[in-house]
């Protein structure tokens, strides 16, 4: 039933990271947001197989920030790949993928295995890289123009994510590095778009790469990609402004709409199309288990029971939240275990029970409760609003909190330097089933705000990475998740739903957000604009 | 003769600077440039001259409110420059000043009582409240004001009354010398006389000495024993009142006297007048030779080059003019 696509037009997209501009353009700066900004330009070995999206009758929504279902991964620059032996992976590159000419940077040329080798080597040599990130590899080789061999030291569950489609896997030609990779004016790659203009804090403009190799099958016919001439990613800090831009058609797609704004937008712009998704950022109030009284599990569990999470879901979020979606996300098929099948020790934590909470506190030696400080980022409107509510619940069991809002930098720094307060309200991306456990509950990790330090657990995490069999790995991770949730290092909080909205004239798009790690390039390459409909609707 | 004040070759120069951060001196205003005179105890010396000729500056230097660039000022035979500490305080007590503008010289936010008592407090002579009260009443009475006025603010008084308050304040410390800087210029003619009479009355009863600065020659004539005429930072003539008004020697003095209109039609129409050309030159670059030569109706070639010194003509009349040689 799909219309025949039309070429041309400009796609205006309101970014899902509305407040953060590109932090850096150099992949070797190892910035998490790089893929979002360069993902239209630099391609990777693997990417999401968008033909498996719901829109095309598949089962995936492609909204997770850094997780692709294993059966929905396809080769992007890689044409095929196979394990030569358990520790050797051979990747065959797609032929005739070309870098477009970029005056002052490079001539037009074909992508070769040298480029993959160069990119990998450059990332690995960076001073800013995540230490030990590539330690599971011994060597990467390029025996011929279209072949790359990855030699493993040991198996790693995240192998494809780490060098294939994750945050740090873009393939950049060496000419860009020579010209200066940090300068956006030099950025150029094989992707569907080329970077045309960057205005920090405002927008990034991409124009169509006429030489892009990929096609999309619509109505049984192959169409050369991308469809639109120009794509603009807007970072608009102010929420009201953002929503207004969508409402008046100045944005075709707004990747992120908070639930609070949805009703009004639906009313004032009824033609908008919507996709509702569960946030890939969990929220919680981390409790420092290395300090009193949170070294006592009873206290931690008591606080969990003292907070009426159902009420938060129902009243505070107006139903637009899920009680339990962290540290695993329901979309992580096989890794996620719903609350209903969890043991009671976990279920209990999500059931409002102030009586039991008081009892536990008394048992732990705090019958009168206590007071503790909670740091929160002043930049997070939602947390600033919710924290007083949590405070009110806790007060019912005699626990008082002192809220200390902090400016973003100071707030993050407190965690990084492990000087954060006993309470630390935070939002944390899941990333993927393995990383979500590693980064939060392994000793020494930056995002480990509760200072969880359990050598046994650390060992289990390390082990999980080496389990080759996915089923077994899933099982291990489910078990670990169950255990860590029950340990209540945090006051676990509901995960809100968020929304993506777009105008009906944006076709071949259904609210997909990421075709890799926060990478939207392949998605917007496929979207096209029905100019007639746009006119008909009066825009 | 008992000189209470002796001014010897007093010079007061002001540097003129320009620039924002790095100020540089672009010239000097020679506001007072070699002035000498003596003032005897109990005497009034009138100091007249046109605006800007340095009268106030001289007065301020005598008050030690401005540093002398050169020359000496001897008070009771002692050099002012050497006064420090206790002696300085004592000096501040013995010399007082009355100002021209009775509106600006009284702090509008202080009651008359506090204004008059302030000098007493500063010099630790206030004593208890009662004593102050008595003293203030006494002083008010002395200048012809009523005791109940002590509780009012200056703005509730007329100009003449304010000037009396100023005088009362000056009298509070029982000074021996009062420098009066144009104390009646701002007053209405009908009030001027009242204040002049207060001055004269006080001098008679308290034996004060006045340096009476004014530009109104008629008032000066009335109150002074001797009169000094200033022109552009110099004294051009100094003499007893009788001498000066009856037989002025300096052409400037003559011109000045003739320019003053007399309130009588016949005299006025009979009088012979010398109308000067031009205006007072700037003290930043005074003319060479005699400073008056450019405007002098009787200037001689010599006047362009030679600066005539102030010379005693024997009878106490001193004049700085080549014609008077």
């Amino acid at each position, binding site marked *: 039933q799909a219309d025949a696509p039309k070429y041309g037009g400009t796609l205006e997209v309101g970014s899902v990271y509305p407040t953060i501009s590109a932090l850096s353009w150099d992949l070797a700066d190892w910035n998490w947001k790089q893929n979002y900004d360069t993902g239209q330009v630099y391609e990777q070995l693997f990417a999401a197989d968008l033909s498996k999206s719901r829109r095309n009758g598949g089962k995936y929504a492609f909204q997770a920030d850094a997780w692709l279902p294993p059966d929905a991964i396809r080769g992007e620059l890689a044409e095929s790949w196979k394990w030569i032996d358990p520790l050797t992976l051979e990747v065959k590159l797609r032929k005739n993928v070309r870098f477009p000419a970029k005056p002052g940077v490079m001539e037009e040329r074909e992508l070769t295995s040298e480029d993959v080798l160069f990119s990998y080597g450059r990332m690995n040599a960076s001073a800013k890289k995540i230490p030990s990130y590539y330690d599971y590899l011994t060597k990467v080789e390029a025996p011929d123009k279209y072949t790359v061999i990855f030699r493993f030291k040991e198996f790693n569950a995240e192998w494809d994510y780490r060098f294939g489609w994750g945050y740090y896997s873009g393939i950049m030609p060496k000419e860009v590095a020579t010209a200066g990779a940090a300068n956006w004016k030099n950025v150029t790659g094989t992707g569907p778009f080329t970077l045309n203009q960057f205005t920090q804090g405002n927008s990034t403009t991409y124009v169509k790469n006429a030489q892009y190799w990929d096609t999309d099958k619509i109505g049984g016919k192959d169409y050369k990609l991308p469809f639109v001439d120009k794509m603009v990613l807007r970072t608009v800090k102010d929420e009201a402004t953002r929503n207004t831009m969508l409402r008046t058609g100045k944005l075709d797609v707004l990747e992120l709409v908070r639930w609070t704004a949805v009703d009004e937008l639906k009313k004032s712009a009824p033609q908008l199309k919507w996709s509702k998704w569960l946030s890939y950022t969990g929220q919680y109030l981390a409790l420092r288990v290395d300090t009193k009284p949170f070294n006592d599990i009873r206290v931690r569990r008591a606080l969990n029971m003292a907070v009426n999470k159902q009420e938060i879901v129902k009243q505070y979020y107006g139903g637009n939240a899920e009680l339990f979606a962290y540290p695993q996300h329901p979309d992580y098929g096989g890794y996620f275990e719903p609350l209903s099948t969890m043991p009671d020790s976990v279920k209990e934590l999500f059931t409002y029970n102030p009586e039991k909470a008081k009892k536990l506190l008394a048992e732990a030696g705090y019958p009168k409760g206590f007071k503790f400080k909670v740091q929160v980022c002043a930049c997070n409107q939602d947390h600033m609003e919710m924290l007083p509510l949590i405070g009110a619940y806790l007060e019912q069991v005699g626990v008082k909190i002192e809220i200390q809002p902090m400016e973003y930098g100071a707030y993050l720094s407190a965690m990084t330097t492990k000087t954060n307060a006993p309470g630390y309200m935070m939002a944390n991306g899941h990333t993927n089933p393995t990383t979500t456990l590693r980064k939060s509950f392994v000793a020494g990790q930056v995002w480990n705000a509760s200072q969880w330090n359990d050598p046994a657990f650390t060992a289990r995490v390390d082990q999980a990475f080496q389990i080759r069999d996915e089923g077994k790995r899933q099982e291990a991770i489910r078990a670990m998740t169950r255990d860590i949730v029950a340990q209540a290092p945090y006051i676990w909080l509901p995960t809100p739903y968020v929304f993506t909205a777009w105008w009906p004239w944006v076709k071949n798009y259904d609210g997909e957000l990421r075709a890799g790690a926060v990478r939207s390039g392949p998605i917007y390459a496929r979207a096209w604009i029905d100019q007639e409909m746009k006119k008909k609707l009066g825009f | 003769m008992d000189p209470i004040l002796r001014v010897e070759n007093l010079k007061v120069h002001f540097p003129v600077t320009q620039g924002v951060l790095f100020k540089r001196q672009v010239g000097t205003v020679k506001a007072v440039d070699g002035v000498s005179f003596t003032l005897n105890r109990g005497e009034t010396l009138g100091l007249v001259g*046109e605006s800007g000729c340095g009268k106030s500056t001289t007065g301020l230097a005598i008050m030690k409110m401005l540093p002398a660039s050169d020359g000496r000022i001897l008070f009771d035979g002692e050099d002012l420059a050497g006064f420090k500490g206790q002696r300085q305080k004592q000096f501040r007590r013995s010399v007082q000043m009355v100002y021209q503008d009775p509106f600006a010289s009284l702090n509008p936010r202080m009651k008359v009582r506090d204004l008059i008592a302030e000098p007493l407090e500063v010099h630790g002579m206030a004593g208890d409240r009662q004593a102050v009260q008595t003293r203030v009443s006494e002083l008010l009475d002395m200048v012809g004001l009523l005791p109940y006025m002590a509780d009012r603010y200056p703005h509730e008084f007329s100009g003449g009354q304010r000037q009396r308050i100023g005088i009362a304040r000056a009298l509070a410390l029982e000074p021996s010398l009062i420098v009066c800087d144009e104390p009646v210029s701002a007053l209405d*003619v009908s009030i001027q006389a*009242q204040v002049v009479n207060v001055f004269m009355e006080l001098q008679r009863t308290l034996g004060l000495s006045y340096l009476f600065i004014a530009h109104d020659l*008629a008032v000066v004539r009335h109150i002074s024993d001797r009169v000094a005429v200033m022109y552009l930072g110099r004294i051009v003539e100094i003499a007893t009142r009788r001498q000066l008004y009856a037989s002025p020697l300096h052409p400037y003095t003559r011109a000045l006297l003739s320019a*003053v209109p007399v309130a*009588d039609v016949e005299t*006025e129409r009979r009088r012979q007048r010398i109308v*000067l050309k031009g*205006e007072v030159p700037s003290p930043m670059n005074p003319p060479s030779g005699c400073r008056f030569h450019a405007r002098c109706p009787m200037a001689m070639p010599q006047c362009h080059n030679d600066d005539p010194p102030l010379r005693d003509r024997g009878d106490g009349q001193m004049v700085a003019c080549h014609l008077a040689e």
Partner: protein
Amino acid sequence: MTEPILQVRDLTTRFRTDRGVVTAVDRVSFDVNAGETLAIVGESGSGKSVTALSILGLIPQPPGEIASGEIRFEGKDLLRLKPAEMRAIRGNRIAMIFQEPMSSMNPALTVGKQIAEPIRIHEHRPWRDAYDEAVALLAQVQIPEPRSRVQAYPHQFSGGMRQRAMIAMALACKPKLIIADEPTTALDVTVQAQILDLLKTLAQKSGTALILITHDLGVVARYADRVAVMYGGRLVEMASAEALYRHPAHPYTRGLIACVPRLDGDTSQPLVPIDGQPPDLTALGQGCAFRPRCKLANETCDQAPPPLREISHQHLNACFLHDAY
């Protein structure tokens, strides 16, 4: 005698102030004949300036208000003219010179422009023409190098020069009447003589009548043909200059003449001041304004303001007691 060019009849001007209504000018009547100089004397606040401003229609409204009266000038009642008609008279037929030469000129415009302005707007001559005229006028008021001086700004002029420029401005359209409001009060005596001589000569030459407002009786004696004495907003005496000085009739006029120190006066006698304060115009009450300070006052003076009566030819006096002394 010819018809007077200005006839002021029963002019009353009031101000609404914080403290009540001030009748600054109270039923004042006088004439000015062509070519003559009428002096208006009186102390500060007696209503001299307000009279002048009333004639030109420059009383700020509010708080001021011309309550009644008639001002006939060249056959028209100025109080009944439309604003545009009045503007055609201001600066053209009647010109005014103000007291403060320092502040009465616009600091942002060249002197030449300010002098040329009335010529330009009243005679509708091109700027260039008006400018040449301004140069001629500056020469007329004896400013050296007028051609370069027209380019100067007021701050580059000295006080005397500014007042000359003001005179030039006033003369620009050859008015029939010039009102000079204390034109020399802010200037030195030698400069005062220059300016007033100049003003008088130029006025005489062009047959312009002059209202000279001053509080200096000496100036009056020298320059005025007729004199009007004001006190507390009222005219108390009017006579020719000779008559006024020879036979001052009103007790205030007499007191005034007596209290001014004179260059030829007797210094052995103290000055005779007029006691008391200038009147508070908000609380004049009925009766003679001078009565609180008048040595001769009796009950009659409290009843009603004394009318101005002719006591001899052309000599008017407002005192009930005239016949008594």
